[in-house]
């Protein structure tokens, strides 16, 4: 039997029972729409959380100095805490998988520009901070702070683009000076972070003023800063050994720090944890989808059984005219698969709309992936095959004389 015949006879049957077919399809339509919509929401959430983690750099290990809680110190006042210059030196020399060690220290200060005070976070940053934070030198006439600035103790700074607007308004900041804590710095460059990332998720990178790390340490004494580094970014060479490196850092810090005055965060590990969470989410989604498609499938089976009951005489006639069992089987299976397939296509369309609606009303990112569409369509066709087989089998095995008698 030709595909054309199957198509035509299916089309006629669906047309004849348009409303009933639509009702039968509804289960599959809604099931598929729910799957596509939910997958779009979960994919949006996944991509967003991974992007958030990625901005911190997956090849980084981030150390953060934290003032220990009073109960941890036994009530004793702590003046100095956190990651020390000895630690930093150790990371630079004793660990083999380390590419860069980038300390950052900062404090909120009143900074004067054109004699006008503004509260801005002043950061002492290792020159590698530019790359590791995925920022760029915003103004080609200017430059980023350099290693040499630290060696020569040059009084220069680079200003984040948003901080520049706060300090100088619409004036050109390049060549101007800012003064802070009795020291004066010449603005030699502008920094822009196109991702609008935040340092440690808190401080807007575009809204800070940067001087060379050693320069800042020489201006503010340790009493003012209390730490030698607020954050230390450790970039690894080989991602495969990142966990090993992180473990060695943990072991080293546990051995050298008596108090819990630091935290260590590994975006890559967060990423893996996030992906594991997503897998659990996917299993839950999958179960919901399976149930809704089961319901849809039962609807299809129901309608197919009704169709066959109604068309018993027609089946008998087809058999009397010489149709083989497999011809009848194929025709009804084809009809069931067409129903669920159409339901799948409609469902994908509605799923798209649901995703759009959620994106615009709930302000959640949603992404409909080709994979989810393929999965939804495949599953809906499979539903047709699974739930269409029994009715088609029944139709094919009707005795011709009994079928004709009706």
């Amino acid at each position, binding site marked *: 039997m030709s595909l054309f015949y199957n198509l035509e006879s299916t089309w006629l049957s669906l047309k004849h029972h348009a409303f009933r077919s639509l009702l039968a399809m509804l289960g599959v339509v809604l099931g598929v729409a729910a799957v596509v919509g939910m997958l779009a929401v979960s994919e949006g959430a996944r991509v967003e959380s991974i992007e958030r983690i990625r901005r911190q750099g997956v090849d980084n290990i981030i150390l953060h100095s934290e003032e220990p809680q009073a109960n941890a110190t036994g009530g004793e006042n702590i003046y100095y805490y956190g990651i020390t210059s000895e630690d930093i030196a150790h990371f630079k020399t004793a660990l083999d998988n380390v590419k860069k060690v980038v300390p950052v220290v900062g404090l909120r200060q009143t900074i004067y520009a054109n004699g006008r005070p503004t509260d801005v976070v002043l950061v002492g940053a290792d020159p590698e901070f530019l790359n590791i934070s995925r920022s760029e030198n915003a103004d080609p006439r200017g430059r980023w702070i350099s290693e040499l600035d630290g060696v020569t103790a040059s009084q220069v700074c680079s200003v984040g683009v948003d901080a520049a607007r706060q300090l100088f308004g619409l004036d050109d900041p390049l060549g101007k000076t800012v003064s802070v804590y009795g020291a004066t710095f010449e603005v030699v460059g502008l920094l822009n972070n196109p991702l609008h990332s935040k340092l440690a998720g808190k401080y807007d990178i575009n809204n800070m003023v940067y001087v060379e790390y050693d320069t800042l340490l020489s201006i503010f004494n340790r009493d003012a800063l209390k730490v030698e580094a607020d954050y230390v970014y450790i970039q690894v060479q080989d991602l495969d050994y990142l966990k090993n490196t992180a473990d060695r850092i943990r072991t080293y810090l546990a051995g050298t720090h008596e108090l819990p005055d630091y935290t260590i965060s590994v975006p890559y590990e967060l990423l893996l944890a996030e992906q594991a969470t997503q897998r659990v989410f996917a299993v839950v989604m999958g179960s919901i989808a399976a149930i809704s498609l089961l319901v849809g499938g039962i609807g299809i089976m129901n309608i197919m059984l009704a169709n066959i009951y109604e068309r018993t005489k027609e089946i008998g006639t087809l058999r*009397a*005219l*010489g149709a083989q069992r497999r011809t009848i089987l194929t025709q009804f299976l084809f009809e069931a698969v067409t129903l669920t397939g159409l339901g799948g296509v409609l469902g994908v369309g509605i799923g798209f709309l649901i995703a759009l609606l959620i994106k615009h009303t709930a302000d959640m990112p949603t992404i409909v992936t080709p994979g989810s569409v393929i999965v939804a369509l495949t599953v809906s066709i499979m539903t047709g095959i699974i739930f269409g087989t029994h009715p088609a089998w029944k139709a094919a095995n009707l005795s011709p004389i009994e079928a*004709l008698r009706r």
Partner: protein
Amino acid sequence: MSLIQLQGISRVYGSGPTAVHALRPATLCVEEGTFVAIYGASGSGKSTMLNMLGLLDEPTTGDYLLEGRNVAKLTDAARSEIRCREVGIIFQSFNLFPHFSILENVCMPMRFAGVDRHEMRDRAAELLTRVGLGDRLAHSPSQLSGGQCQRVAIARALANKPTVILADEPTGNLDVKTGDEIIGVFHELVAEGHTVIMVTHNAEYEKEVQRVIELHDGNVVRQ
């Protein structure tokens, strides 16, 4: 050699004391090119006989030789194949497919026989022209009268050039005049060499046919 030879063929429904002997062992022959009526009251077993002849049902005992080949005990697939190529069936209530055009209706048996698409359409059009419906190929059965529907059914039965044409009360749903016209078509077919076996309970048709096989309570009482 006879076209059809039934040798001790019977059909029993159920078993034991409740068994229904729809057809008692019957032996008869039908020669090629004859117009035969199977006559009997309802419940006489004439429909069972037709089901046997049309390979719609399997006999309980006996042999059925169609063109010398024993077709009594065959698989469902093999019987379907013979129904398709060797038997043309016409029903009392026409049994046309209401959603298809009459052209498509006539094409149907040829689809099962795997006839080429163009050849199929050409032959269907030719057959419909022959039964006087050549100008209505695209019509649906609901647009035609009963007599016209039965003509479509006859064209459909002829589609695969069958060895035997079986008609189950072909005039039962038609008025006398239209019924006579249909009988007229059968006469034409027989004149061309076709073998037509018609089941009827109407004694009027006795004079129309060349031979009557009469059944009573499952027994062949006249042949």
